[in-house]
């Protein structure tokens, strides 16, 4: 899976959890999930589960703590896929 494709997949996961007043276009690499995209912190748990299913990886609690922005999430996904290969 190429980098842009991974971003698109992640974006499709994240958009479901956006509050009504945040548009899909707001999701950028630098976006902070909670402070900028206003995603309920409880829903970060669900985003992690969806990411696990979409990329066939397992994200540990420590990884999740590092996952503040979309870029962080992509980095963790890259690392996991790399380790898997």
């Amino acid at each position: 899976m190429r980098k842009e494709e991974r971003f698109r997949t992640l974006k499709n996961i994240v958009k479901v959890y956006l509050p009504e007043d945040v548009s899909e276009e707001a999701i950028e690499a630098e976006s902070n999930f909670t402070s900028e995209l206003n995603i309920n912190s409880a829903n970060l748990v669900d985003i992690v589960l969806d990411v696990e299913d979409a990329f066939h990886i397992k994200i540990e609690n420590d990884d999740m703590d590092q996952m503040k922005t979309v870029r962080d999430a992509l980095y963790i996904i890259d690392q996991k896929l790399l380790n898997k290969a």
Partner: protein
Amino acid sequence: MKKRVVITGLGVCAPKGVGVSDFLNTLKKGESGIAFHQELAALGFSCQIAGKPEVTPSILEAFFSPLQRKGLRASGIVYGVIAGMDAWADAGLEKAAKEEPDWDSGIVFGAGTLGVDTFREAIHLIDANKTRRLGSTTVIQTMASGISAYLGGILGCGNQVTTNSSACGTGTEGLIMGYERIRSGMASRMLVGSTSDSGPYVWGGFDAMRILPSKYNDNPILASRPMSDSAAGFVPGSGAGALVLESLDSALKRGATIYAEVLGGAVNSGGQRGNGSMTAPNSTAVQRCIKAAIKDAEVQGRDIDVINGHLTATKKDVDEIRNWSEALQRRGIDFPYINSTKGIVGHCLAASGSIESVATVLQLKEGLVFGNQNCPDIHPEILAYVDASKIPQQTIQYQPKIAAKASFGFGDVNACVIFKEYPK
């Protein structure tokens, strides 16, 4: 000084009655919401029929955002949100603004179980060492107060937001709790209601108690037979009912449509003493509860024009009728009109009191007494107390002024509420 309390909104999600207009139509015509469920047959249930609201995908989309629908399996939340939001909209009320809740509006929305299907799914994941896969909504879909929490967030209520639970008395008890809160001046508006989820894991325990009918699997619409000599047990049901209670002052100020007034109510328990037990009501307590409600409403037994009974279609129907007769001191042709909504929707357990209260209030508003289903053969011991003409077999035109509604629950708990027509 007690505040007067009126009903300004109704909502319902019942078997063959999703939305008040559908429900009214079903009640008028006496159609049945009871159907055969293959799922119950496949699991070897004795009683393979039940009452279940038909929530189509388009209804679900109208009430829940895509995010809320994700992983939503708690049917108690689905039914409760539909009924609660419908009642709120029917009352002409808006959701609170984004920044501040409505401090004068609260919620009492009861439940017995809320999301047994979600709970079951969680148990399977936990037993498979996959607790981390539960996701973030398992708690709110399984905690009893998940329904009041859900509605409280959608509507932005800032007064008391809670869930009561008293088995099949839940709905009527919650209505009285909300009524008392407004009457005492502690809230201006209370959304009251109750919900009960569907499915084999909710109904299985009752099937095991052999108190459900097992001979009507091929003929479900005839199965629920309150007050009938051939009553064979209650048909399990599910759904939710909701009412917006409001101080008369607030309702008049808003120019709201008023369905009826809540005159008073009472709750008590028979303490599982006398002829009461975990599963059967103490008759003395039932009569005391009815009398206390009438006293609280400042009316007399002779003023009651119509009763919506608990009347589940078991042998206990006879006891209930005797209790009404003795509490009101009325019998024969002098007995009020009486009906049971359960002939149509079955016994919706924790939701029964609120669904049936919606039906009772609709009678006051529409000038009707809804017909009883499946009791052409009225139990002879009931006929000893009530003239057959007071148990209408079809819906009749009659404007009741005062209506009584009672519910009784496991644990020997009782609730009775008195409604009054609000002149148009």
